[in-house]
């Protein structure tokens, strides 16, 4: 077992890679009442076509990673939520493009809850009947999101950008794809992606790190797993251009919702975390709430408080997303993209760079109060080969030149797409 200390943050991380391949991280938070644990599979909605360690290749229905997440909570002895509840723990799970995360929060019986987490995620129990029953629930979940304009405009933009890469497929799939899922397919996916060597356990809170790690090791040593191996994810070649420059759909909304952004070629180079932070810093410098542009757009009644930006990257995809609600989506997109082109041409001043960096460091340190955010972000960075606890140093090593270069590269007018949701005329 190894420890890494981060004196600046006053944190010490304990970590070990177990014999079965599972990576375990423990961040003790002395004085904290609660413990938060995540058990994460490097498996998300984009992993729908892959070659298994035994060499066979399969393609699976859309939404199956999310379906699998739902079904993991059922065990022969009953519903796993009830067991967590008996131990005073609140459990949950979520599926994203590239991860499935199972989690619990507990203030008591942390050991028992940790056992339960490891047990249920490593103990699939699918029957024809329980798979069938879940379909009605998931179809309602899909319907709920279909009525949600924020979700629709978000996915609309990804659909506009990507033609081949499965990132454009809704995480929950469609009613039809969900109905086609069988327990055999669930086992196929489970056996491929839930091998310990494809998973990460992160525990943060008021725990004794050594005792906790020992407990996890004993638990894992007592279980047998088929030998792991390389999983090859198969993505069709995605063209660099956006699929559609513009995508519109109608839903009842008070004002049009609009998101736009730039699609990039997937980045396979070194230090993807650095690239992510530079991109986010550059966007914040130009579009953040203390920028002159933001204030002008607000004064002109083109944006509301919800205006913002993000930058998403994962296996085979990389794009920015900017926007919010607006009276005039086209004017908003035109003015914001022009401001980005201008900033790319003229450069961001070192004063603005410094202020934005300060803001980012502050936001990062505030986030470090939240065990939930630490666990989620740590795992996300880890999957990219980065280290969350080195973010402050990373920010401190950035230069205005680097930000400016990144912005130039990112804000490519030929890679801009826009997604709009507005009320229908009917």
């Amino acid at each position, binding site marked *: 077992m190894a420890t890494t200390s981060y004196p600046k943050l006053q944190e010490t991380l304990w970590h070990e890679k177990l014999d079965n391949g599972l990576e375990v991280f423990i961040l003790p938070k002395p004085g904290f009442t609660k413990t938060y644990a995540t058990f994460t599979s490097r498996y998300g909605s984009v992993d729908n076509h892959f070659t298994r360690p035994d060499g066979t290749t399969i393609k699976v229905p859309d939404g199956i990673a999310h379906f699998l997440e739902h079904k993991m909570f059922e065990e022969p002895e009953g519903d796993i939520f009830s067991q967590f509840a008996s131990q005073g723990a609140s459990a949950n799970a979520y599926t994203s493009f590239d991860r499935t995360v199972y989690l619990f929060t507990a203030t008591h019986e942390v050991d028992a809850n940790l056992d339960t987490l490891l047990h249920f995620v490593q103990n699939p129990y699918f029957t024809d009947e329980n798979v069938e029953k879940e379909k009605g629930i998931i179809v309602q979940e899909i319907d*709920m999101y279909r009525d949600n304009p924020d979700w629709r405009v978000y996915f609309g933009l990804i659909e506009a950008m990507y033609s081949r890469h499965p990132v454009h497929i809704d995480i929950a799939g469609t009613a039809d794809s969900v109905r086609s899922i069988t327990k055999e397919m669930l086992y196929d996916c489970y056996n491929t992606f839930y091998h310990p060597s494809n998973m990460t356990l992160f525990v943060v809170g008021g725990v004794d790190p050594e005792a906790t790690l020992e407990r996890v090791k004993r638990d894992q040593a007592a279980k047998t797993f088929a030998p792991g191996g390389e999983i090859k994810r198969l993505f069709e070649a995605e063209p660099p251009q956006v699929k559609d420059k513009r995508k519109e759909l109608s839903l009842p909304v*008070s004002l049009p919702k609009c998101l736009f952004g730039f699609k990039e070629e997937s980045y396979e180079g070194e230090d993807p975390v650095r690239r992510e932070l530079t991109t986010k810093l550059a966007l914040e410098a130009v579009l953040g709430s203390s920028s002159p542009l933001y204030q002008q757009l607000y004064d002109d009644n083109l944006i509301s408080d919800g205006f913002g930006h993000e930058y998403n990257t994962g296996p085979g995809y990389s794009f920015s997303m900017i926007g919010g609600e607006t009276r005039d989506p086209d004017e908003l997109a035109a003015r914001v993209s022009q401001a980005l082109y201008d900033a790319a041409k003229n450069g961001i001043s070192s004063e603005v760079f410094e*202020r934005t960096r300060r803001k980012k460091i502050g936001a990062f340190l505030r986030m470090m109060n939240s065990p939930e955010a630490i666990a989620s972000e740590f795992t996300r960075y880890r999957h990219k080969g980065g280290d969350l606890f080195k973010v402050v140093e990373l920010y401190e090593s950035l230069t205005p030149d680097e930000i400016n270069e990144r912005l130039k590269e990112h804000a490519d007018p030929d890679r801009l797409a826009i997604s709009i949701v507005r009320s229908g005329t009917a």
Partner: protein
Amino acid sequence: MSEQFQRGTLGRMRLHVLPTKRFKTFALSLFAGVPLTEEKVTSVALAPFVLRRGTQSFPETISFRERLDDLYGAGFGFDLYKRGDHQIVQFRLDMINDRFVSSSDSLLGEALSFLGEVLTSPALEDGKFRSKYVEAEKTTISKRIEAIINDKIRYAAERCVEEMCKDEPFRLLALGRKDQLAELNADKLYQAYRQWLQEASFDLYVSGDTTLEEVQALVEKSFRLPTGEPSRYAPPSLRPARSEVQTIVERMDVGQGKLNMGLRVGETYGSDKYASLLVYNGLLGGFPHSKLFMNVREKASLAYYASSRLDGHKGILTLQSGIETANYEKAVKIMREQLDAMKAGQFEADDLRRTQAMIGGQLRELQDSAFERIAFDFSNVMSGAERTGDSFIAEIQAVTPEMVTAVAQGVELDTIYFLRDRKEES
């Protein structure tokens, strides 16, 4: 849980300071509450929107926001909500502790000085608010009110309460009334704001590496509140459910129907039966092991979400679920059966234990978040309850099945609200 709030007063303001070294930040919350009224709801709501545009020292919004960036990206914001029969404005400031950055300023002093200016020394022109800010924020608030319709889950929840409480001020949105915005100009709003400063109850909370003495001295320098004594919050008025349940059906272009129920309960937060009521809510619909989740979702596969929420300050219980329109009758029947079962004392001892363990966990967990500890304490201040986390956990543990059944007798259905599609519209 050895850390305790230290209490003091300064003129009209109660001070609550939680000295702690556990967090990397200082957390500041300022609560200002007045009775919720038809006449003043809109001016009370609009004032904080204008206050966050600029202060005497930072009159331009850009300089105001740059100031926050310079304070290491301090998180500043405000919330508006109804609590009991009051309308509360809460300002929040979350800022990193100096020891994590190399800074020579006392960040806490800077933060309190900033917050004091926001509340009591706004940017003015000719002895009133700046018209430009007032007009822009009228637009912002009006857009916020209109935007409620975008999130159908929230919209249905607001509409259900509005219909249920149509004869009392609680039907109003904490954001105020759109139709009252037009008449509010810079002068009128400034007068209303001055009066609000005279009338509101003020509670300032500071959590972090500090003391009551330090905060007291800093607040004295930074806040210019009218002199006087702190005022108390009046207890809420409990109302019975209407004698016959009303059913409201509203149609919109939605895919999924939203079924909400509004109920009156016989006890509020300050009552010694509140613990029983909280356990009642947990058994009915607070958790994944609760009756609503188990019966509406797991057994009948009718919904993705089905839950209940207790507003203990007002004495209202709400039920919510998203269903296919065709399943309306079925879902209403199942939900009413769960209410009847609770009245008849039909719940398992195991589920009672689970619920107590879960609520106990939530109460212990909130010790780890400065803002949640503050919110818990403020609930005491508002309701006159004198609970600590530990004493409340003991109360929850002492709840018996008989006590739950007793409070169930006071829970009465008042309103059924259904948001549905336009199919078969007559």
